């Protein structure tokens, strides 16, 4: 996630002074409490992962996780941490809500602006700076029969990169004070968008993914599948422990790219699909 964007949005959340008072111990059962409109948390975590986009690695990191909705329906979400599966940083407007369903107008991103990297024969990296793919879309979220559903749809991504759709289903359990969940997500990724990041075009007047020696590649559309298992445990009113295991099935349209094929062969313990493990503690304000 773009750290500058995270900091900016987190700053906005802080500066508006609208961070909710979410953490309170019960002085008495009858104490009235105002309804929470948001939260913000900062955390540190350890991760280990393997996939097609980078060398197998492990390390430490930090994150911000927060969300706030104003009374007029405008909201901002800065999801972060190992157990965030809500997606990317978003701003939007709540169009409709009842006890079970939410409909939001959403501005977010379908693909981050991370550089496309190509490992050359001598091991050095050739990088192509890539802009994020943003969208304006509609999000439906709801709970039905104990399952949580989310659908995001947009007919047009930024820079004419096609349409985008993301659907997700998740199930939650509470075992003692442990919260356990599993989530499955399918994303439709347009050929135009994948081509921007993973295509190879060696025409003379092209500066996008022009890599001599690689065959031309025009990516088709694809479906990505991801599975997420996670647990959260409240250590105190302020501290949370999270653990997560994620699996990402990379679409063939990405894996078949000569860039990715070459990186898989030359990179350090890369794999076609991605697997990640994360552990974190976070402080909720």
């Amino acid at each position: 996630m773009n750290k500058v964007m995270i900091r900016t949005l987190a700053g906005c959340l802080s500066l508006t002074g609208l961070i909710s008072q979410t953490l309170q111990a019960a002085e008495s059962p009858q104490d009235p409490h105002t309804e929470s409109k948001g939260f913000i948390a900062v955390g540190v975590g350890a991760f280990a992962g393997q996939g097609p986009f980078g060398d197998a690695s492990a390390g430490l990191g930090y994150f911000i996780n927060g969300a706030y909705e104003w009374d007029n329906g405008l909201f901002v979400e800065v999801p972060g941490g190992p157990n965030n599966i809500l997606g990317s940083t978003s701003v939007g407007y709540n169009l409709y809500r009842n006890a079970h369903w939410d409909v939001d107008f959403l501005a977010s991103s379908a693909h981050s602006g991370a550089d496309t990297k190509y490992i050359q024969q001598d091991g050095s990296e050739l990088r192509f700076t890539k802009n994020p793919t943003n969208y304006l879309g509609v999000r439906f979220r709801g709970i039905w029969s104990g399952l949580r559903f989310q659908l995001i749809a947009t007919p047009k991504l930024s820079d004419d990169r096609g349409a985008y759709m993301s659907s997700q289903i998740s199930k939650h359990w509470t075992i003692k004070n442990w919260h356990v969940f599993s989530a499955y997500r399918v994303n439709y990724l347009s050929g135009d968008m994948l081509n921007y990041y993973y295509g190879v075009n060696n025409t003379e007047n092209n500066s996008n993914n022009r890599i001599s020696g690689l065959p031309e590649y025009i990516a088709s559309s694809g479906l990505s599948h991801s599975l997420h298992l996670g647990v959260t445990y409240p250590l105190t009113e302020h501290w949370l422990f999270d653990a997560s295991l994620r699996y990402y099935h990379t679409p063939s349209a990405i894996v078949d790219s000569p860039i990715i094929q070459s990186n898989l062969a030359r990179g350090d313990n890369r794999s076609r699909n991605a697997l990640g493990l994360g552990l974190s503690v976070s402080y909720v304000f």
Partner: protein
Amino acid sequence: MHKFIFTLAFTGITLVHYPADASTPVTLTLSPQQCVALHQGEYCHSELTLHWQADTQGHYCLTQSNREQPLKCWQKTTAGTLTLALKFNQNVRFALQDNQQNTLASTQLTYAWVYNKSKNTRVRWRMF
């Protein structure tokens, strides 16, 4: 002495009640003293240990708020321990009573949470 009582009450470790006869203190301790739920209103599960001690032998009962029957009673003894598993979503008060149902000591199990109740899915769905 008042300072001592205040200190104990403030730390929340042990609540001590001194009946009229100050020479017979009774202590009631609870461990753990707090249970934290992720969201306000959802049940918190806790394995509790309650321990009481008195200077004089007698008939003592341990009671729980919102429960008519005592949790356990002891006869002709000066100390007792009770362990129990509890599921709750509000503060719970425990008291040690004598056979006249006078409260000799009490302590509270605090119900706490991380996220307040909300209709807002941005909060409700925080933990997905």
